[in-house]
């Protein structure tokens, strides 16, 4: 199976468990297992090739000019990791089926698990570091979902946040490091980068790249000082801990170090950073683990410690180190996953996993005891179990390592860490399974169902099998993976249990004996440990996060305090400053153009626009007056567009003016009609000075621009020349919109639709809860007079409607060759519809509105997109338009252009957006009107009488009863009607019950 498909399978199947959960937990688990099994099978089909030293590849160009290719490969290392991920994934799926309870959303769990699995497989099979980074971030995200799976537990949420923060930050650092690495190597393909060892290590950017990449690897693999997140992530369900935090995700950092080993290792920097961090982590975490009472916390710190061991081995930069690292990755995955699952079984069956509470479980759960003991002995490094073999290798390698010419430091620390490791492993067994049988447990423990202990038992068998016959069971895999880590040409010595009397054997004996001794003296040491002041990672983390949040709050509030005046002031000062700087440092040539003569009409327009603008400034506290003045400005601008031969702009301006006025008036209804003067005299003078200055500057700039020729030839020549030839349209403006710059227009229509939906969502939010009560309690500040729906207006708008629609159609159709087009036509139709709303009322019009505006927006974007995509079928780029001429009998020859389809999309999008926005705003007034209605009927405001909200609109309006139902136009009319009836029935019910009160 192709590597790309193996990585894609879990993603493709991720939705299935969530769907199949409706048919039961077994099916959800089965389909997850099926997908994982399929991927595993596909992977193993490639095993012979990879074992023979070959590499299986899939190469797909994605964004080649960015160096981002979907390149997957399976080499030895990828094969090892992918087998671990998918194999243990399969066991976890089985285990989780029994571990999770009925109340847990199991389908969701498997979906997250598959997503995570896909991301992990993606990491280990990527042959492109940019692709790897994408999967890397995906593991952070999906593990966040998994850790926080028990959303009701605050620890779960906090642990998930912490894990995401730490690994996310590490991911950012790694992105930078990887980009540097790719820059040095000249390629982002891993197989290519691995060939450039000398260039990379000689580069001055080697150290920064190394530090940044290690930042990513260390955070992911919980290396000191980033180790603190892993224990907190243990609040996840145990299957997650067993999968993510023993076998897979935390090993991603190790994988990365192993992957980059050929090019990054072998330098002193590598050795002193990686090996030292690994050693410190190994030692420190092992020590902490001894004193943890929570079985999972103990295992968590032990995991950190073992990850430290592997990091330490990789850090040595020797082949022996790489071998030990690879072998221990396999061994740790087997025994640690088994241990986690055993701890989960204890927790599941006993109701607690506190080592101070559980004891003597040996008699109650013999199977679990056997599994846990085998795995823990392996963790302690006892011969005949696989942990012994790799620990021996580690000690052997440590024995030959000197640190700053110090021969004994590293071996001593490594032995000490092994001793600690033996101690907590022994403690895990003896405290939980030996001793007197505990009687005060929440549940009486017993061995779980077969399905639950099968997975850990399988791993325990592996632990023993590898321990007894390492060469037969694990040999080929270890050889293959180590060969890939060191970059080829590696031949492994036989893996065997007995190496003769070596220093490592003595170190091992010291560790085991010392571990037993330490365990015997555990109680007093525990007292000392508890009394000792220790840095608490979570407190520190929370402190840092709180400070960071305060800092960003401070910056945000300083720049973004919600005062429009301040934004405008900052913006104006900045742009005037930039302009002044440009003016004082740049050069400006002499004017090359004559001013055009001024005629009388232009002077009138000038007077109009200038007076209106000045009046807006002077009277802006009176909002209606300001709105009228804005109308004058819009009118003059429209005429000016005509005067300057821009009929398209004029048409747009004319219709936009109308829509704007309607929009402003809708909003003005709820705003005070007069704004108070709140600014101080000083601030006003400053603002006046600033705006006069800015205005003068802009005027000067425009004057300078208009009196000079362009420094470069403009684009308009090209547009004019090619508009007809390339796009078959005479109207250059429209051709630019729908063809030359079609992509922009497509984006704009989409954005317009989004904006309308946001307005709708905002008003929707205002119609809920407190703001809704506020609206109902709201009373207009001006008296109401006149007719709601004047007859005159009704008749005029009804007559106008078809005419307006025909004009809209006409403007739409002629758009390609004459002034017009979809945008203007959309506005015209929207205006025609709005007049219906104004004249006949919202309810009446809405009842006759068969198509929802949401649908119109979607249809607009879709039609434009599909038209654009049609070009792809002609092997042309997206949005390329085509045109041709058609002759139908009885008609003149006419043109058909695909651009018309695109323009139709624009048209629909504009109609939908404008109407949705206006309709959304008008709903606020309707809600307020309900309160008013109630206010007229009685002294109570409607908020106190909930039935008024339903009944008020029913009582209002001159229309027949069936039209009176307040139509929730975003639902189907029928559902709304039923809901309303149910609501009314409930109110009547309520009244009956409380009848005695009156």
């Amino acid at each position, binding site marked *: 199976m192709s590597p790309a498909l193996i990585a894609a399978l879990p993603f493709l199947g991720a939705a299935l468990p969530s769907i199949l959960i409706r048919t039961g937990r077994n099916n959800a688990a089965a389909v997850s297992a099926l997908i994982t099994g399929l991927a595993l099978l596909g992977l193993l089909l490639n095993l012979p090739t990879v074992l023979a030293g070959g590499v299986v590849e899939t190469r797909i160009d994605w964004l080649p000019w960015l160096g981002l290719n979907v390149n997957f490969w399976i080499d030895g290392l990828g094969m090892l990791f992918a087998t671990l991920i998918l194999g243990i994934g399969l066991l976890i799926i089985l285990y989780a089926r029994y571990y999770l309870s009925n109340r847990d959303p199991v389908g969701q769990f498997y979906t997250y698990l598959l997503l995570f699995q896909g991301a992990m497989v993606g990491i280990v099979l990527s042959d492109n570091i940019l692709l790897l980074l994408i999967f890397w971030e995906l593991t952070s995200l999906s593990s966040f979902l998994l850790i926080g799976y028990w959303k009701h537990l605050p620890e779960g949420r906090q642990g998930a946040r912490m894990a995401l923060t730490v690994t996310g930050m590490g991911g950012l650092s790694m992105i930078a490091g990887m980009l540097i690495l790719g820059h040095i190597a000249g390629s982002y393909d891993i197989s290519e980068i691995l060939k450039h060892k000398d260039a990379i290590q000689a580069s001055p950017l080697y150290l920064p790249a190394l530090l940044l990449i290690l930042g990513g690897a260390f955070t992911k693999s919980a290396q000191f000082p980033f180790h603190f997140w892993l224990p907190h992530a243990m609040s996840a369900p145990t299957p997650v801990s067993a999968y993510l935090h023993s076998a897979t995700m935390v090993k991603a950092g190790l994988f990365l170090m192993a992957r980059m080993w050929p090019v990054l290792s072998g330098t002193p920097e590598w050795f002193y950073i990686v090996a030292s961090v690994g050693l410190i982590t190994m030692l420190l975490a092992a020590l902490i683990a001894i004193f943890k009472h929570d079985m999972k916390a103990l295992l968590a710190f032990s995991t950190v410690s073992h990850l430290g061991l592997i990091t330490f081995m990789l850090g040595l930069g020797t082949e022996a180190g790489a071998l030990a690292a690879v072998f221990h990755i396999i061994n740790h995955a087997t025994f640690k996953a088994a241990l986690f699952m055993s701890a989960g079984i204890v927790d599941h069956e006993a109701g607690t996993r506190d080592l101070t509470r559980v004891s003597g479980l040996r008699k109650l759960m013999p199977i679990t005891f056997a599994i846990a003991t085998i795995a823990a002995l392996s963790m302690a490094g006892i011969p005949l179990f696989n942990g012994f073999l790799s620990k021996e290798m580690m000690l052997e390698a440590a024995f030959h390592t000197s640190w700053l010419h110090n021969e004994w430091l590293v071996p001593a620390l490594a032995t000490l860490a092994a001793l600690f490791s033996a101690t907590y492993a022994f403690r895990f067994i003896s405290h939980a399974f030996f001793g007197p049988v505990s009687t005060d447990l929440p549940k009486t423990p017993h061995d779980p169902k077969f399905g639950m202990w099968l997975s850990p038992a399988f791993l325990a068998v592996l632990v023993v099998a590898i321990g007894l016959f390492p060469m037969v069971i694990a040999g080929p895999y270890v050889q293959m993976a180590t060969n890939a880590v060191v970059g080829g040409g590696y031949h492994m010595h036989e893996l065997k249990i007995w190496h003769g009397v070596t220093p490592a054997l003595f170190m091992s004996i010291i560790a085991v004996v010392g571990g037993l001794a330490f365990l015997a003296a555990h109680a007093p040491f525990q007292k000392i440990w508890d009394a000792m002041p220790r840095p608490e990672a979570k407190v520190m983390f929370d402190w840092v996060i709180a400070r960071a949040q305060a800092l960003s709050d401070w910056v945000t509030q300083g720049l973004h305090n919600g005062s429009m005046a301040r934004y405008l002031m900052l913006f104006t000062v900045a742009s005037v400053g930039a302009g002044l700087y440009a003016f004082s440092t740049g050069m400006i040539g002499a004017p090359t153009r004559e001013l055009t003569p001024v005629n009388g009409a232009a002077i009138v327009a000038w007077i109009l626009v200038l007076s209106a603008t000045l009046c807006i400034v002077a009277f802006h506290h009176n909002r*209606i007056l300001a709105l009228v003045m804005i109308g004058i400005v819009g009118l003059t601008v429209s005429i000016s567009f005509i005067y300057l031969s821009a009929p398209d702009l004029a048409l747009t301006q004319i219709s936009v003016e109308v829509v704007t006025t309607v929009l402003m008036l809708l909003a003005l209804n709820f705003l005070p009609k007069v704004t108070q003067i709140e600014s101080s005299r000083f601030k006003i003078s400053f603002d006046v000075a600033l705006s006069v200055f800015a205005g003068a500057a802009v005027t000067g700039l425009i004057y300078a621009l208009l009196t000079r020729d362009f420094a470069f030839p403009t684009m308009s020549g090209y547009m004019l020349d090619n508009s007809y030839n390339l796009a078959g349209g005479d109207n250059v403006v429209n051709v630019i919109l729908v063809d030359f710059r079609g992509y922009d227009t497509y984006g704009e229509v989409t954005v317009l639709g989004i904006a309308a939906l946001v307005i709708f969502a905002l008003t929707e939010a205002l119609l809920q809860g407190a703001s809704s009560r506020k609206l109902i309690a709201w009373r207009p500040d001006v008296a109401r*007079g006149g007719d709601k729906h004047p007859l005159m207006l009704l008749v005029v708008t009804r007559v106008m409607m078809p005419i307006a629609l025909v004009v809209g159609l006409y403007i739409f159709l002629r758009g390609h060759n004459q002034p017009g087009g979809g945008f203007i036509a959309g506005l015209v139709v929207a205006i025609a519809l709005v007049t219906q709303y104004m004249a006949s009322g*919202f309810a009446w019009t809405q009842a006759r509105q068969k198509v929802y505006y949401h649908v119109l927006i979607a249809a607009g974007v879709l039609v434009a997109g599909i038209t654009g995509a049609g070009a792809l079928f002609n092997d042309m780029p997206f949005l390329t338009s085509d045109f041709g001429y058609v002759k139908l009998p009885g008609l003149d020859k006419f043109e058909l252009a695909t651009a018309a389809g695109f323009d139709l999309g624009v048209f629909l999008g504009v109609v939908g957006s404008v109407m949705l926005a206006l309709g959304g705003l008008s709903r606020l007034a309707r809600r307020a*009107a309900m309160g008013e209605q109630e206010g007229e009927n009685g002294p109570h405001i409607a908020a106190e009488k909930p039935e008024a909200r339903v009944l008020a609109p029913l009582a209002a309006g001159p229309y027949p009863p069936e039209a009176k139902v307040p139509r929730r136009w975003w639902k189907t009319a029928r559902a709304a009607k039923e809901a309303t009836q149910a609501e009314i029935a409930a109110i009547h019910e309520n009244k009956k019950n409380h009848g005695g009160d009156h």
Partner: protein
Amino acid sequence: MITYALIFAIACYSAALIFNLYRVIKSPGVTDRVLALDTMAVNAIAMIVLFGIWEGTALFFEASVLYAMTGFVATVAFAKFILRGDIIE
């Protein structure tokens, strides 16, 4: 001859626009202002048509049609607003 007629007409409508402007700025009430704005729209339509004749083109005709068709909507909206506050009831 048409030139003189055009100049005369444009001058008249220009004067009318200025008078409208005066009425908008200085008026007894907001109703007068809105009506003055509406009259301005009528005058603007005339100006657009006159300019089209002056240039000898029919290109601007649609603009005046559109203005005639939609210009009154703003006035209606203002009127409803003044009377009822809420323009879409």
